[in-house]
C-alpha cells in the first residue's frame, strides 16, 4: 500500500540518522521519493526548511554540488537571496556570487530601474563590499592627486564618507524611515560611484571649467540615484529633511574633487 511504503521509508530514513556511521551516508531531500543510501558519493543538497533535512559533506573532498530548487518557505524573490546549498559549494562559487552581487547592486542603483521606488524591493540583496571599494577608491584617487598632505586628505575623505553615511542612515531611521540600516548604508555607498568616475576623469584634465562640468554631471547623477531610495523610505512630510543631508554630503564630496589639484 502506498501509505505503508512511505511510512516505512520515513522510518528507514530516521533510523539511519540515529546510526553514527564511520563514513557519512548520503541522504536525499525528502521531496524526492525513495531515500537513497550511497556509501561514498558527492554530497547532496540541503534545503533550509523548518525540518532541516539531512545533508552531508564527505570530509576528505572539497565540495561540488548541483544547485537545488529553493525551498518553498524562503524562495528568492526580486534580487534573489543566496541559494540554500551554499554550505557545500566550492570557494570560487562563493567569490563569483559575491562579485555578481556587487555588479547587480551597482546596476540597480545607478542605472534606471523600475523597482527603485519601493524600499522593500530596492537593493534587497544589500552588501557592503561595493561601498567599501568605492570609498577606498575615491579616497585613494583624491589623495593621489593631492600635492601635499596626502595622508591627511585620505583620512579626511575616508572618515567623512563613512561617518557621513552612518549619520545619514541614522537620520533616516530617526525620521521614522522604514529602511534597514545596512540597506541604506549600501545605497549611499553605491551612489558614490558617479563621483568616483568624476574623480578619475578629473585626473586627466585640470582646467576649472572641465572639472566643474564633470563634477556637476556626476553630482546630478548621484543625487538622482540616491533620491528615490531615501525619499520613499520616510513619511512624505519629512522627505526634505531626509534628502537634504544626502545632497549636502554629495556636494561636499563634489567640492573635494573639484578643489583637489
Amino acid at each position, binding site marked *: 500500500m502506498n501509505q505503508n511504503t512511505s511510512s516505512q521509508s520515513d*522510518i528507514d530514513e530516521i533510523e539511519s540518522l540515529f546510526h553514527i556511521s564511520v563514513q557519512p551516508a548520503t541522504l536525499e531531500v525528502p521531496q524526492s521519493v525513495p531515500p537513497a543510501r550511497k556509501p561514498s558519493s558527492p554530497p547532496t543538497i540541503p534545503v533550509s526548511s*523548518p525540518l*532541516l533535512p539531512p545533508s*552531508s559533506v564527505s570530509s576528505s573532498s572539497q565540495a561540488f554540488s548541483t544547485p537545488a530548487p529553493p525551498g518553498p518557505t524562503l524562495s528568492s524573490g526580486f534580487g534573489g537571496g543566496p541559494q540554500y546549498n551554499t554550505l557545500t559549494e566550492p570557494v570560487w562559487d562563493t567569490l563569483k556570487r*559575491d562579485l555578481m552581487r556587487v555588479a547587480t547592486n551597482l546596476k540597480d542603483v545607478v542605472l534606471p530601474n523600475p523597482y527603485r521606488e519601493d524600499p*522593500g524591493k530596492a537593493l534587497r540583496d544589500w552588501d557592503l563590499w561595493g561601498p567599501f571599494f568605492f570609498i577606498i577608491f575615491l579616497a585613494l584617487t583624491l589623495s593621489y592627486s593631492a600635492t601635499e598632505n596626502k595622508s591627511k586628505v585620505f583620512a579626511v575623505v575616508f572618515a567623512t564618507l563613512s561617518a557621513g553615511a552612518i549619520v545619514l542612515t541614522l537620520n533616516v531611521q530617526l525620521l521614522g524611515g522604514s*529602511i534597514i540600516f545596512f540597506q541604506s548604508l549600501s545605497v549611499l555607498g553605491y551612489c558614490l560611484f558617479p563621483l568616483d568616475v568624476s574623480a578619475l576623469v578629473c585626473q586627466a584634465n585640470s582646467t576649472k571649467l572641465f572639472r566643474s562640468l564633470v563634477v556637476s554631471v556626476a553630482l546630478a547623477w548621484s543625487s538622482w540615484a540616491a533620491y528615490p531610495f531615501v525619499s520613499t523610505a520616510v513619511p512624505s512630510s519629512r522627505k526634505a529633511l531626509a534628502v537634504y543631508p544626502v545632497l549636502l554630503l554629495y556636494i561636499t564630496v563634489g567640492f573635494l574633487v573639484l578643489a583637489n589639484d
Partner: protein
Amino acid sequence: MAEEQYAHPGVCLFTVLFKFTALAFYILCSIFVQSFVIQFVVTVFLIALDFWTVKNVSGRILVGLRWWNEVDEQGQSVWHFESLDQQTLETLNKKDSWLFWWTLYLTPVVWVALGIVAIIKFNFDYLLVVSIALVLSAANIVGFTKCRKDAKKQIQQFATSSLASSMGSRIQSAFLSSV
C-alpha cells in the same frame, strides 16, 4: 593511536594567514612603508579579506556554519543561519574547529590591546584601523555564535519532531495493519 591531522590544512592556513598578516603589517608597517595611506589601505584590505574568508570559507568548511542577512518582501531584515546536520557535525575534524573558534575569539582581544596602545601614543589615525578591525571581528563572532546556537536548537527540534513523526507513523501503520 596517531594524532588527528587537520582535515583542511589549506583553509586553516588561510584563516590564520590573513589575520596574522593584518596584525603583523599593522605593527611593523612603519618599517616597510612610510606613507600612512598605503599602510591604512593595505591593513584594511587584509582585514576585509580575513573577514570574507572567515565568513564564507572557514566557517563553512571547518565548522559547517554559515550566516547572512537578507531583506524580505516586507522590507524586514531577516538573519539566516545555516548548518550541517548532526551526523556531519560529529564527523568534523576537532582540530579544525578548535583552530577556528580560538582564532575567532583571540583576534579581537589582540586588536583591543593594539587600540589601547594607539590611544596611549595619541595615534588617532591608527585608531581608525583598529576600530574597523574590531567591528568586522565582532560581526563574525556574533554571527557565528548565533549560528552555532541556532544549529543546536534546530538539531533538538529535528530530533524531537522526527521522533514524534516516527511514533505517529508507527502507530498509524500498526493500526492499519491490524485493521
